[in-house]
């Protein structure tokens, strides 16, 4: 018998993250199902990256629990980390290492060591065959994203965490990245991504959670959220062209004020 517990790969419950006296995340809870692309949306400073950082074991959280692939991220951080692949918001690798050396480093520390020939074959798969001897900084934005993504999935993780993966990419690179994210899903992995782009959320996410002031204020499929809030006065007021879009729902729920 399949239960709900069998289906989720990530369960976040009552999560609270503080930086000193500042409460960045307050009582956040959601589940990411296996093979699902789940989006965290929110204005700047809403708590998206703090939530992701807690899942990634980068910050200690004050309250709540995070279960990833059955492992408590605070009690069993190595097991939890081995179950996830991560692409951070500002991706950076050792400036002195070339692409082959970077891939060998990360394949090694994720327990799937590769020799130079295997790395070259992998680079060919992601259209970076000629970039092996280049430094990370010498790659274009799209190439850097492709490399970061392949590193995030190098160990075949259960869950891939992507923090604003398409920021700064041109439309072609963005589309290509969406296809790669969908390919990750097709291989049975779950994806949790944060984004500011409503277009991206609608294009790739199966479900989304809208986060504001450190709390989840709405969670559902993009279409279900539009249907649910289309009659909300704030959402109607936010609508620019009469037809209610996910962006209208987002603005209606989080307000028009520009965040720092």
């Amino acid at each position, binding site marked *: 018998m399949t239960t709900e517990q*069998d289906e989720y790969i990530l369960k976040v419950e009552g999560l609270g993250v503080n930086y000193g006296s500042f409460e960045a995340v307050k009582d956040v809870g959601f589940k990411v199902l296996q093979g699902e692309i789940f989006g965290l949306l929110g204005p700047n400073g809403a708590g998206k990256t703090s939530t992701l950082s807690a899942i*990634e074991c980068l910050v200690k959280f004050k309250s709540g629990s995070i279960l990833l692939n059955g492992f408590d991220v605070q009690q069993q951080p190595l097991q939890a980390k081995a179950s996830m692949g991560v692409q*951070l918001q500002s991706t950076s690798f050792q400036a002195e290492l070339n692409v082959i050396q970077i891939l060998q480093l*990360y394949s090694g520390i994720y327990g799937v*060591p590769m020799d130079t020939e295997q790395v070259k074959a992998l680079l060919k798969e992601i259209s970076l065959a000629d970039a092996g001897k280049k430094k990370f900084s010498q790659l274009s934005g799209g190439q850097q994203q492709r490399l970061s993504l392949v590193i995030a999935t190098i160990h075949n993780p259960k869950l891939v965490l992507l923090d604003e993966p398409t920021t700064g990419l041109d439309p072609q690179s963005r589309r290509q990245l969406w296809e790669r994210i969908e390919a990750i899903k097709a291989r049975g992995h779950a994806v949790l991504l944060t984004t500011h782009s409503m277009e991206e959320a609608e294009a790739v996410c199966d479900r989304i959670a809208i986060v504001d002031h450190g709390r989840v204020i709405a969670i559902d499929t993009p279409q279900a959220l539009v249907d649910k809030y289309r009659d909300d006065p704030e959402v109607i007021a936010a609508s620019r062209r009469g037809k209610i879009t996910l962006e209208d729902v987002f603005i209606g729920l989080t307000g028009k004020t520009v965040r720092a």
Partner: protein
Amino acid sequence: MENNNINIPSTPTVLATLFKADVATQISNRRSVIITLLVPIMILISWKNFAQKIGGPYVLSSAIDIGLISIGLMGYSLSLARDRDKGIFQRLRVAPVPTWAIMFSRISIQLLMIMILNLVIFMVGMQVDKVTLPASGYIVAFFSAFIGGAVYLSLGQLIVGLVKNFETVNASVRLVYFLFIMIGMFGELGLLGDYIKDAIRWTPYGCVKIMLAASMEPDKWDKDATRAVLLSLGYIVVFAGIGINKFKWSTK
């Protein structure tokens, strides 16, 4: 909810992989390695004519002391501050790697640099200054250099622990490096007066210098040398204790 099919690499595999990457980084940073060796070698060359007057151990220990400062401050702390600033540590920390392994690999590289520094100083000292030590002198000095290196590595850790901003770390280590060279070396020679000369003896610079010089002539080991070793160990405990406790992996 599944918890199978995970692959946690063994600690030796992780350490070997990190160390290999750190060695590749160090090799790419050839200029910084050369600069680390250059100043001590310049001391050896410029003091060539004084070596027999002021003593071979004095010349060699001064050169090694300056090189150790460079390794601990310029090599170790600057690389930590830069990688922290660029988010490289955060990227490593989201992998199934114990955090101590990341630091262990970094420190191992600096220990390797200390070995290279010693070998270079001893060889240049022998060739240029005609300074030779008894075999026991070379061996004990080698071990003392590791303790001395640990003093400056822990001082570097203290600086990156207390200062988050890369530019401020950069300015701080250069200032400390300059102070150690100028006040330490010239003060010790008595050029800055007797008060400074006495005060410098028990600073990190002075302790490492006394310890190294005494190690090169084990037969002449005295109470001051023992005191210098104990004080060096004290500096290591205090600097590393505060530096590790205050260290943040991210500048955010």
